[in-house]
């Protein structure tokens, strides 16, 4: 099955202008190839730079300790599940994998309801300030989250979404997406679990202004 493309727009930081991009409803082999051949080398280059400047390990990008071999296998698994990615100028700018079948809500007011769980969401390293002085595009995380909410609505889950955020991403999910931070989850490496209620989802896709 071929992925369906929808036109979205990213903010190009160099020009301050919106550029057209494709939101695809399936990660395909070519996107994983971009990850392998273009994302990973940039992460490695960051580490090389930090090492040569004697930066302490604590300043290394948190993604560097990934066991790449295991991650490659996990990434391949993305091809078999629900997934989305953003392509711009022929290159993969962000990817997301979802679990749309087995996750349930944890918030008291909606406990036990179905939700879409974001297994994985990541922007390309050149769009992230920890890797480059000036990120190339903005808006990737928001558009992917829009897709997660829309998929939740399409599944009949009314926009409910859950995820475990990386430590540096709490601001995005709490303040920018308006999700509820339920604190560290001892079962998932103490990552904070965030959940989006039906009302929060409506607010997010309506574009209600937040801090």
């Amino acid at each position, binding site marked *: 099955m071929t992925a369906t493309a929808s036109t979205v727009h990213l903010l190009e930081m160099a020009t301050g202008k919106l550029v057209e991009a494709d939101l695809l409803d399936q990660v395909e082999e070519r996107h994983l190839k971009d990850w392998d051949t273009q994302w990973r080398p940039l992460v490695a280059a960051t580490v090389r730079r930090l*090492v040569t400047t004697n930066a302490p390990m604590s300043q290394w990008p948190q993604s560097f300790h990934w066991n790449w071999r295991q991650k490659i296998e996990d990434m391949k698994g993305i091809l078999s599940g629900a997934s989305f990615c953003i392509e711009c100028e022929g290159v993969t700018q962000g990817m997301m994998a979802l679990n749309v079948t087995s996750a349930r809500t944890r918030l008291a007011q909606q406990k036990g309801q179905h939700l879409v769980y974001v297994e994985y969401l990541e922007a390309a390293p050149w769009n992230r300030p920890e890797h480059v002085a000036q990120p190339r595009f903005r808006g990737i995380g928001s558009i*992917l989250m829009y897709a997660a909410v*829309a998929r939740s609505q399409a599944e009949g889950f009314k926009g409910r979404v859950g995820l475990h955020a990386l430590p540096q991403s709490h601001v995005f999910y709490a303040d920018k997406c308006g999700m509820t931070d339920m604190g560290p989850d001892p079962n998932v490496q103490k990552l904070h679990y965030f959940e989006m209620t039906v009302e929060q989802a409506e607010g997010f896709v309506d574009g209600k202004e937040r801090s």
Partner: protein
Amino acid sequence: MKFEIKKEWCLAAARREGDVEVGAGSLAFDPTPEIEDAAVQGLPTEAMQLAFGKLVNFLRRQRSWSIEQLARQANVDAAELLLIEKEARHQTEPHTVFQLAQVFHLNFKGLQQLAGLAVVRNHQVVTEAIRFAAHSDSIEKLSPDQARSVEEFVAALNRLADGEKASQ
């Protein structure tokens, strides 16, 4: 699945998002964040193996050997040596590591750790290995600086392989 996301929504969302990190999910997370004092498992194995390949390459060139000559000296397969030097993800056979340790007079345990065949007991090994790999480049002849880099790294590897702390 088709979306209709308005341009205005994208612009507002991008401005709101700013430069904050967006990563989510354990797949996007360092699985061993508290590694500083533990046995160093799941560390940047690829970087370690890259250092292993660089070390073999440098030591071979230091002796002015071709890959075939090294293969004969160590009694190992030339094709595997090529993979060791060129492909950081290559899983080296333990026998090959042993033979290379013999022919280059290296600490077998240290070389095993570098090749990803044994658990690294000393965090400093990783730092030294990555520093060494980062310092190296692809020019044909070893510069005096590179030769010194090899010597220092071999000394550190031999010293640190058993978990001994580096003298700072």
